[in-house]
């Protein structure tokens, strides 16, 4: 039986144009720009100098704390410069620019394609490997994975949940990965289970990927303790809290973590990266990215080295269509428009989505008609119209008491609003101001 979460949610058109397209390896670019802030937490500290020779997989920036991740060179060559380059949002961030020469890998990395089935390492060693190899959550939030694996004393984990929902329209990176790397994903899941010390894992997949569900169900017979659960198609099912509610009917308390209800949620892409990190000792230096859009000539799924410019991916998909109006990094619901096509692909980029001109622009904002559509679709049970008004009026005490900080920024409210009001934009503003106020209160 298909499951889903109860509160709110929307059904945007799926538009999965790149579904069923084999993952292709994008040729290694001439230069890569590897941003240093690719994860949530402390930025990494650069340890290479200009002119240094680096190999594929070599650490170029060390984690700047526990909640941080190592960053590795995704190519071999010479460090051209350590500079500030424009990221997707138009701000300049420190990054390492490397001129590519050949494709020379570190000897410690197992480059072969063979499936390595035997788990040799202990739980601590797995977590250590994950940390060394700079694995972060590949669903988009880029939270360092080893932090999630280090369960604090006193917390009990009973379930590992693998998020294979891919509820964002257009994106198919995870879908294709499941079809092609099923065994690896299962082994990655087993490694994560061992690291966490749990015996049960559930892989949640939305019903719009029946081929992936049946493929994984067939494979699941070989692996004990891993269950596949089909889910009704509903956005934002890929949100941690929604997924936990849908799969095991537990509710994460306001301001809490999945750990509070005995769960750890990992993305399916992360499970694959963990397999490669632990069994092959391969750092996170490439990821699957969907390049898609309504007028894109050949929507594709690409295996891309971290740091490749977005423009190269767009070229591989047949070039920028004439009528493109906006290029978005990520999915259409939560992705961010890019200010510049030279923006490098980072660990968290799951897709490059090209909108046509007529889809790209926002519509005129009309007054709120109190239809409460936003209230009925909010998966966190908030009142978006109210939060927007309160933020506009700078009444931040009430923004806080109306639980603005619980907002997961899924964008369902803005999507459904018949007056096309920028609800999420204002809620985000309210959230950031409230967190600032809370921080100043603590001091």
């Amino acid at each position, binding site marked *: 039986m298909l499951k889903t979460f109860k509160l709110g949610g929307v059904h945007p058109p799926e538009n999965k144009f790149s579904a069923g397209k084999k993952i292709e390896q994008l040729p290694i670019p001439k230069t890569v720009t590897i941003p240093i802030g690719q994860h949530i937490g402390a930025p990494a500290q650069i340890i290479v100098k200009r002119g240094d020779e680096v190999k594929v997989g070599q650490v170029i920036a060390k984690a700047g704390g526990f909640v941080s991740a190592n960053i590795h060179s995704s190519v071999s060559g010479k460090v051209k410069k350590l500079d500030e380059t424009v990221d997707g*949002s*138009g701000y300049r961030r420190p990054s390492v620019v490397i001129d590519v020469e050949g494709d020379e890998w570190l000897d410690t990395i197992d480059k072969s394609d063979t499936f390595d089935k035997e788990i040799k390492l202990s739980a601590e060693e797995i977590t250590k490997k994950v940390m060394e190899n700079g694995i972060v959550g590949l669903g988009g939030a880029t939270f360092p994975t080893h932090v999630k694996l280090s369960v604090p004393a006193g917390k009990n984990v009973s379930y590992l949940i693998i998020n294979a929902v891919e509820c964002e329209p257009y994106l198919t990176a995870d879908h294709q990965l499941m079809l092609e790397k099923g065994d690896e994903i299962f082994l990655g899941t087993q490694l994560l289970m061992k690291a966490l010390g749990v015996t049960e894992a559930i892989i949640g997949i939305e019903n719009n990927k029946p081929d992936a569900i049946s493929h994984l169900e067939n494979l699941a017979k070989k692996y004990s303790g891993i269950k596949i659960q089909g889910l009704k198609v509903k956005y934002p099912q890929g949100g941690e809290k929604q997924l936990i509610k849908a799969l095991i009917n537990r509710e994460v308390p306001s301001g809490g973590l999945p750990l509070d209800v005995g769960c750890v949620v990992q993305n399916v892409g992360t499970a694959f990266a963990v397999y490669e990190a632990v069994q092959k000792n391969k750092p996170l230096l490439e990821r699957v990215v969907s390049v898609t859009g309504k007028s894109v000539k050949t929507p594709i799924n690409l295996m891309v080295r971290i740091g490749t410019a977005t423009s190269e991916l767009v070229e591989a998909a047949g070039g920028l269509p004439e009528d493109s109006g906006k290029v978005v990094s990520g999915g259409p619901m939560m992705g961010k428009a890019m200010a510049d096509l030279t923006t490098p692909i980072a660990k968290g980029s799951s897709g490059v989505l090209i909108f046509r001109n007529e889809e790209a622009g926002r519509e005129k904002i009309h007054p709120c008609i109190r239809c409460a559509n936003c209230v009925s679709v909010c998966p966190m049970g908030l009142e978006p119209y109210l939060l927007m008004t309160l933020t506009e009026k700078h009444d931040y005490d009430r923004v806080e008491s109306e639980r603005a900080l619980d907002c997961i920024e899924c964008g369902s409210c803005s999507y459904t609003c018949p007056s096309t009001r*920028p609800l999420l934009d204002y809620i985000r503003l309210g959230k950031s101001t409230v967190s600032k106020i809370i921080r100043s209160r603590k001091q």
Partner: protein
Amino acid sequence: MSDTVLFTIITLSAIGIIAAVILYFLAQKFKVYEDPKIDEVDEALPSANCGGCGFPGCRNFAEACVKTDDLDSLFCPVGGNDCMSEVATILGKVVAEKTPQVAVLRCNGSPKHRERVNTYDGAENCTIAHNLYGGYTDCSYGCLGMGECVDSCNFEAMYMDKETDLPVIIQEMCTACGACIEACPKDLLELRNKGKKDRRIFVSCMNEDKGGVAKKACDVACIGCSKCFKACKFDSIEMKNNRAYIDFEKCVLCRACVKVCPTEAIHEINFPLRKPKPAVEKPASTAEVKDVNLVAEAKKNTENAKVETKVEKEDTNKQDENKNNETK
């Protein structure tokens, strides 16, 4: 009939009188003493309730004035020195005169100087735009042009100039309450001393990028070349994070720095026009050079597969338009 009317009047009057007596004694018992001077001070204040003094309203400021021993630490920017001396005489205290201040905008990135590289059509709010992206030009430090400062101004001292897309401060109306300074997410507004004869000199740029990057993004950016720093004989210029800052307390308004700035990032306000010297021709010639640079840059940019949220073709049209504007 008449009895009923009479009876009603008598009863109600009696209730009224009794209630009045009770209320009188209760009011005596629960009376809160308030210094009558608070009312007097409140009268003397401008009643703008703008919060420029750091208190929620004029009444709270008046209370603070009456309570404090040191009146110098309090200041009503709207009323200014006149108002403060009046308050001081009411309270029998002394207050030192403060230099009047005015808000200045530290960005000169009009479309003439900065090339637009993308379009933003989200919520019309500077802070939202600031949290989302760097800005519609390559300069991520400059004005976003949505006028949150103008909205925040209680004194109608600001308006948006449609041509430059920048806010303008009307010096006569500005009370230096600081509301716009709080409102600007890019920290572009600053309170500076009004100066002798209202003359001011300041660096009109907040760009902290390296010189080349800043210059490419905006013609009138501070490129951190330190020329003004060297030219200043009064040690009033500080170089920090690739940009210059002029300390208005130390500046003597000699204008030596204005002359040497290669990008015209240092602004002088309310100075008489300079006498026509050969030096005046110089800026004109640099302006020509700048135009040539712009064209060269525009070409480079088209090569660079810059993205835009608009179609490339349209964009080149736009650049052409920009060029036309330049020539106009």
